[in-house]
């Protein structure tokens, strides 16, 4: 991993933009799928795959790799797009998303794409699987382990009791090698999370289970990368990064609107969105200028 200088930040921002364009492109092609979550997690996925993760796209099964568990499988357009841009498979394969026989199933499935760490879709079980991986790593390597297990969660799925079963166990087992990221975009299918089922005070809930909590702007490359670095230095506790994100980030017309949780753009919306992203007319550019 290299240092995060201005050039690297620019590189990451450009990558995230490219990934967002792929997301819009393939969702319209597929004709179904989720838009808001993939767009708002693009910056975090970019930092992970192009800066933080210990991995090798040319050797996906490299035993020394970090593990990345995507719990809310429905945002897989961002996972697939980032993996393709990172070199795991050809970018043109992204166009097969959700089509019959595709390796890119509507929700991630390891039978079809073996380089995935887990299959996922039903919410609430990803953190448990990541806890299992972190436990295995701790059994084998104890406190000296440098491997990190990353669990990416949505905020809505924190309504699943199983997430808290897993959080309790991770706190009890003091899993320093476990890092959870919560996409705090405040929306879910039926509306805004605080209307559907209030989650606040979210950071207090994690602290109560003996987690180290970091809150960040989920669209600021430096803050994202710093949070992952800080997590590596936390001893005797798992870390959760609560990433405050803007649902649908990158396309003004989609932002903060929960109705974009579970639908794809149509042809016209795709044209408009890609144009906005290509010209960097959206907030991504202006915020960092």
């Amino acid at each position, binding site marked *: 991993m290299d240092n995060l200088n201005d050039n690297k930040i620019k590189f990451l921002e450009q990558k995230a933009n490219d990934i967002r364009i792929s997301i819009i492109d393939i969702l319209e092609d597929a004709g179904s799928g989720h838009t808001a979550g993939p767009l708002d997690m693009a910056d975090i996925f970019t930092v992970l795959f192009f800066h933080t993760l210990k991995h090798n796209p040319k050797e996906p099964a490299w035993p020394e790799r970090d593990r990345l*568990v995507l719990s809310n499988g429905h945002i897989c357009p961002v996972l697939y797009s980032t993996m393709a841009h990172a070199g795991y498979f050809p970018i043109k394969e992204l166009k097969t998303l959700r089509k019959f026989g595709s390796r890119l199933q509507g929700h991630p499935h390891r039978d079809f794409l073996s380089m995935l760490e887990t299959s996922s879709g039903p919410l609430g*079980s990803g953190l448990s699987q990541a*806890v299992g991986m972190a436990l295995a790593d701790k*059994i084998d390597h104890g406190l000296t382990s440098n491997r990190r297990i990353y669990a990416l969660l949505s905020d809505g799925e924190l309504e699943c009791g*199983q997430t808290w*079963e897993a959080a309790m166990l991770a706190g009890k087992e003091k899993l320093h090698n476990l890092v959870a990221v919560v996409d705090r975009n405040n929306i879910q299918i039926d509306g805004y999370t605080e209307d559907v089922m209030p989650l606040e005070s979210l950071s207090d809930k994690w602290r109560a289970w003996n987690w180290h909590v970091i809150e960040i702007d989920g669209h600021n490359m430096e803050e994202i990368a710093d949070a992952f670095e800080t997590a590596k230095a936390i001893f005797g506790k798992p870390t959760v990064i609560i990433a405050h994100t803007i649902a649908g980030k990158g396309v003004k017309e989609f932002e903060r609107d929960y109705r974009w949780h579970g639908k794809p753009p149509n042809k016209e919306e795709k044209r408009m969105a890609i144009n906005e992203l290509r010209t960097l007319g959206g907030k991504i550019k202006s915020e960092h200028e």
Partner: protein
Amino acid sequence: MPINPDLKLNTKMFDEKVEQIPIRQGFGEGLLEAGEENLQVVGLCADLTESTKMDLFAKKFPERLIEMGVAEQNLASVASGLAAMGKIPFISSYAMFSPGRNWEQIRTTICYNNQPVKIAGSHAGISVGPDGGTHQAIEDIAITRVIPRMVVVSPCDAIEAKKATLASVDTGTPVYIRLAREKTPIITTGTTPFEIGKAQIYWQSTKPQVGIVATGALLHKALLATKELEGKGIEVEVMNLSTIKPLDEKAIIELAKKTGRIVTVEEHQISGGMGSAVAECLVKNFPVPMKFIGVDDQFGQSGTPDELIKHYGMDTESIIKAVTKILKQ
């Protein structure tokens, strides 16, 4: 006596003072031995370490035992994560809670994910007794056998449970091992052959009129019934179907061809259980008249195991009746 001599079964199985051991004890001993043989074996338990007999493993290998608390959904998915890193996790709880409560986690994070987690469901069946219907898992065979990749094993005694536990380590698949709480008669011996996926004829007959297919501890009652029927001049052949999935179709078809009538015996709902699996096989391949011994679309209740087995029509008498009835058809 036509007990299959090749299988080296317990010669004292019909003695009044036949040795009785809970099937779950065999799991505990098997897991302990598996832990000694294979360093990747880990145990996960949900606040029932002693009563699922995982305590034997826990005492010897505390560093490989993870106490999950009362959290069965987490139990299943954490095991999936451990398996993804090369561990061979055994999870144990009461069958009502695992695979009962955590069925979706077992389906998605274990089976769909193709992780070789071994699920030990103790206190299965109605013979749990006084605890009552909430704790009597009589749907577990149905809900596990319906999941792709899952292997379903229902041992007939503690010795077979130990062998099944050891055999499950190397299948590379998810395995459900069905266990019971109560002490039940020892039918097999250490030298009785056991193989996952292989059914065996425990009671042979030269001219059988009925074939009984039994699974779990009720196999003993099926053998007792057969012995009584022999006295009445009715010849029966008895199969121990300890692996319900994958089903030994060849052996079942052979038995149906030889006998022309099949009675299935299980401590489970009739609907969806072992009998259904046998029926699915025979309807496709060699349809014969069938009768099903099991719980008929009801919940259990408190009582002694014997009272409950009799009340729900799974005792020796009920098996004899079913055989006599099917002969008249």
